[in-house]
């Protein structure tokens, strides 16, 4: 579904990533780890087309990202659910409206029953009309997860989804992502939380990748 071939990325003259080879296949569960500033977020952004590679080729669902028109790239993004560490909400809209945003952006009517069911799934049915700033960190992350999956994406990319929540909430988020994966959605989580990775590997066959010295490598057996 998503393939990076010999991808490099430079920012302000500095090479952040080089020679990256990555394939996210259907149903895969991947962890992306590495020290802060290693380029995890950059790699995720390359995977959903927010950044263009300096070299190499990024394929999104079989199409060369650099050859996609702006509209085609926007349409492709709807097939990828993204969860940011800071959630990226529109604070003037309710949580329900934020979760429904991908439908509005696609110009499609929001399926009210699906939206209710989804908010119920992430445990936010009582906070549907609340504004994002009034939610706790865990609630915000679950709302971000709901928004990421409302269009039934084929891939979910999560950037440090448990970075601002306690262990109990981390486990709850992980169980939601594992449930999604069991339904066939590929999941890639960027995190430096090794405990989270170990907890996941106890439940699913997850592959762990590490960014080190600008290169993407398969992590050792200790993970």
């Amino acid at each position, binding site marked *: 579904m998503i393939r990076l071939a010999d991808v490099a990325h430079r920012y302000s003259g500095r090479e952040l990533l080089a020679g990256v080879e990555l394939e996210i296949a259907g149903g895969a569960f991947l962890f992306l780890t590495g020290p802060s500033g290693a380029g995890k977020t950059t790699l995720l952004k390359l995977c959903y087309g*927010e950044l263009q590679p300096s070299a190499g080729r990024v394929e999104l669902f079989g199409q060369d990202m650099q050859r996609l028109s*702006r*509209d085609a790239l*926007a*349409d*492709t*993004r*709807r097939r990828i659910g*993204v969860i*940011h560490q800071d959630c*990226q*909400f*529109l*604070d*003037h*809209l309710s949580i329900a409206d934020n979760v429904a*945003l*991908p439908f*509005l*952006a*696609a*110009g499609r009517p929001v399926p009210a029953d699906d939206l209710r069911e989804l908010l119920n799934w992430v445990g936010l049915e009582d906070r549907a009309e609340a504004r994002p700033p009034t939610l706790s960190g865990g609630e915000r992350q679950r709302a971000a997860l709901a*928004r990421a999956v409302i*269009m039934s994406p084929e891939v979910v990319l999560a950037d440090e989804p448990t970075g601002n929540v306690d262990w109990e909430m981390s486990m709850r988020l992980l169980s939601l992502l594992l449930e999604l994966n069991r339904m066939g959605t590929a999941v890639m989580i960027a995190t430096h939380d090794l405990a989270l990775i170990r907890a996941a590997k106890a439940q699913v066959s997850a592959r762990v990748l590490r960014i080190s010295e600008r290169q993407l490598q398969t992590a050792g057996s200790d993970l």
Partner: protein
Amino acid sequence: MVPASGYTALLTGATAAAMAFLAVFALALSLASGRLADRWSQTLAQTATLRISAPPSQMTAQTAAVLEILRTTPGVASVRVLESDEQRALLEPWFGPDLPIEALALPRLIEIIEAPDGFDPVGLRMRLAAEAPGAVLDDHTRWRRPLVQAADALRLLALGSILLIAGALAAMVTLAASFSLAANAQVIRVLRLVGARDAFIARAFVRRFTLRGLVGASIGTAAGMAVLALMPLAPARDGVFSGLGFSGADWLLPLLIPPLAVLVAWAATRVTAFRVLRREG
């Protein structure tokens, strides 16, 4: 989709209102100039004045000769010798009433009304020179032309002002839209994240600024029309400043200003939004 922004909303609405207010007056000036040019052109184009300056002993003979020439001139519909009372009325604005006109050696004036096809002034002047040397034909061209040109220039100036007003509105909306797009960079980022196309994002801003333009321009147009309706104007015969307001169906023309402002705001915001979205990647 885009959070309300009081500052840009007020700025755009107020600018549209002010521009529409000015556009109403520019339009009124344009229409008044056009009417003035038409009136001067039509009224004076179909008349001419013939002046006979001759010694009193020859005045009657030359007048008779002139009238005979005019009677046989093709294109002259009718002629009329101005009476003393009419001449007194013409001079009254300069000399006041009770002017002893009989004591003055005034030329005799003959008003010529042209037929629709008009007469040949060059040919008529040649005949007059030969048969009535004291007669001078004034077909009003000499002073009618600059007046009509002035009125036409005034009309062009007013129309140019409307274009300048539209340009100023477009510039103001472009600035406000650019500011709004920059202030809402996070909104744009989130919309992109969830797969919104540029057209969808641009539409959110275009709708907002177009609506502001419509509301502002409607208020400005209504205010301009109200001021014109209430403005005390000189009677129509008093020249340039007569009839500055609208008359009859002309009152419908200012109603085109809000739709035009909407068009300007729509185009300016759309162009700005797409330019910014493409630039920001």
